[in-house]
């Protein structure tokens, strides 16, 4: 997984795209009432995301809980139908597929889940777990070939052939995740969406699974979309990284660019918040400490979603104009490095300096119609946000 020079540019439409996501939105209705079942609002989990992944690339999607990264991953696989927008995998718009057609196409895109214990059926042996998908896609017609293929799969993920007759509980967490990966590989997919593939594992075992994913990619030419909250892990395995905040991408760049020149204030804060296993670096570094919590995705702030917590927030534009992902005109920053911030250039040149942010109370409780006055508006702009209640 090396970064080459051409990686630094965003893929042009004519390039060899495996995945093309355009304007995807996933809104979940908030319903209330027993009989009438009124929709009283929406959770804007994913709110307009464009994303392109080239064949053989690893794209990392990072963000904190509630930013919509997992929902986006599911929307891409058609597990969560998008409210709006299109997902084109290998030339086919998956929204145009239904029923049997969609089921057949699922062979091309597989998922690896976070918790292998809950994503593997405890009452199925490893053999049955692996064969199930192959059979569903007509890949297990010949017994001898199937058995050879199973051995090959297990060898690929570093498990002994004896594992076939065992059950998930007989394995350690790392081994279970290997089974989950083998299951995804069984149907020879083109795209693998891995949702937090290592976060449930012990630190010493994480590296084994990360290395395995990289090896398999090199050998089989796989394309990955890795969804994770751990920036260090994502930076390690990804070619390009998209940073999500409250349902939208705020920055997209190659892994190295993103780390060396983070342009979005949120990315800066996120990078500076990750504890480094190095006391010298820890003592020296300056942290951009964010105040407050993620606002509720059912009442996202107007304008830039991040403006309520942004230490670089300006009086104009931030609160009322939603920034789009754009290339910036800063020397040394390649065109493929895109950021959704009105003031990215000024911040990077040091013309705008960070200021104090008053912490605002956020609440997990979307129901209270009196919520507005229970906690008071965080700012003038938040007061303008239409309430979710009827």
């Amino acid at each position, binding site marked *: 997984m090396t970064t080459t020079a051409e990686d630094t540019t965003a893929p042009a439409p004519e390039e060899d795209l495996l995945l093309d996501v355009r304007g995807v939105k996933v809104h979940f209705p908030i319903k209330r009432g027993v009989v009438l079942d009124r929709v009283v609002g929406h959770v804007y989990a994913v709110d307009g995301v464009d994303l392109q992944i080239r064949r053989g690339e690893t794209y990392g999607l990072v963000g904190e809980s509630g930013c919509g990264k997992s929902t986006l991953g599911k929307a891409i696989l058609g597990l969560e139908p998008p409210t709006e927008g299109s997902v084109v995998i290998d030339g086919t718009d998956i929204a145009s597929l239904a029923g049997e057609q969609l089921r057949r196409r699922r062979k091309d895109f597989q998922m690896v889940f976070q918790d292998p214990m809950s994503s593997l059926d405890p009452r199925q042996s490893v053999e049955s777990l692996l064969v199930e998908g192959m059979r569903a896609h007509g890949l297990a017609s010949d017994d001898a070939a199937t058995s050879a293929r199973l051995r090959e799969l297990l060898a690929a993920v570093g498990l002994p052939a004896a594992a076939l007759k065992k059950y998930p509980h007989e394995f350690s967490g*790392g081994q279970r995740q290997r089974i989950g990966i083998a299951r995804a590989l069984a149907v020879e997919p083109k795209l693998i969406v891995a949702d937090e593939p290592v976060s449930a594992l012990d630190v010493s*075992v994480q*590296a*084994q699974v990360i*290395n395995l994913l990289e090896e398999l990619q090199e050998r089989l030419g796989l394309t990955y979309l890795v969804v994770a909250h751990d920036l260090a892990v994502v930076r390690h395995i990804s070619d390009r990284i998209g940073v999500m905040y409250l349902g939208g991408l705020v920055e997209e760049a190659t892994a190295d660019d993103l780390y060396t020149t983070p342009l979005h204030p949120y990315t800066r804060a996120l990078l500076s918040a990750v504890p480094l296993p190095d006391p*010298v670096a820890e003592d020296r570094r300056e942290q951009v*400490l964010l105040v407050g919590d993620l606002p509720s995705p059912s009442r996202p702030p107007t304008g830039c979603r991040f403006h309520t917590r942004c230490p670089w927030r300006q009086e104009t534009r931030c609160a009322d104009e939603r920034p789009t992902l754009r290339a910036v005109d800063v020397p040394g920053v390649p065109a493929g490095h895109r950021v959704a911030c009105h003031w990215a250039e000024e911040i990077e040149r040091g013309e705008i300096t960070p200021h104090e942010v008053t912490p605002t*109370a956020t609440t997990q409780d979307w129901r209270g119609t009196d919520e507005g006055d*229970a906690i008071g508006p965080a700012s003038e702009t938040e007061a303008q946000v239409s309430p979710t209640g009827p």
Partner: protein
Amino acid sequence: MTATATTPRTGRPGQEPLLSVRDLRVTFRRQGEEPFTAVDGVSFDVRPGQTVGLVGESGCGKSVTSLAIMGLLPARGNTVEGTATYDGTDLLGLPPDQMRDRRGRDIAMIFQDPLSSLNPVIPIGLQVTEVLERHRGMRRRAARPLARDLLDRVGIPDPDRRLTDYPHQLSGGMRQRALIAMALACEPRLLIADEPTTALDVTIQAQILRLLKELVEETGTALVMITHDLGVVAGLCDEVNVLYGGRIVERGERHELFAAPRHPYTSGLLASIPRLDGARGAPLTPIPGSVADNLPWESACAFAPRCSQPVQRCTAETPRLEESAGRALRCFNPVEVTR
């Protein structure tokens, strides 16, 4: 966070230890099964104003150590041996009612998951005042302003209104702050934090770690930090204890330990985590196997099967924790110091 009522208790390493754990051994017994020793002869000291880290992966005994010190292990099915001397008293020998008096007053604990440590049907304010009522004999009405100040102190915005909120109305970070407020209610001299930021997002984690750091600096509280995250340890702890299979395998001052890890487990852990500030592209060096592949400490080094440089002695003899110049190491074939 604003400094309030607390008088700063100055205290720095070099003083008499506030908590002194010696040869702590916790064995779980279940009918029809071999007894399992989760903590196997752990000793460490915590001084006022000092932050001591217990680091290790799942099953290394770090949490059981803290529960044993706090007297929170179930009364049946286990044996706790050794001593945990706090201010001249052995906590492990205290009868339950005396321990109950100390818990929350002298020694407080913060747990990993704030939602399951808070009572879901009682407002936050009441849960904080409860501590004050129990340990300081305050009336609820008198305790309320104090509870408000505590919430304010841990950085909860609009504390007056938050007093009447229930845990589910707070975000994860706010819940953890509320929990810290409860732990601080009686100005404990010792705080044990068991993975306090593991359930939180990184930006919130940074806030909580900053809060804990300020607390230690301002009040001179001793802090025992239990975590699996070497990054958290590197920024926060003065002294680090690395645990493996229920025993301390290495101990050192954080700068020394991270600059020159001697135990293959410590250095293996450091090599296996992807670094945000390191070079990219090179494959990681994982530690092979899993924590389940241990040898019994009685006759070998438990880490030997996963070790990168085992020697013959490792599978035949029990390595002892050798102390020298503030460092302690349990290894027959330590990693050469290159720097």
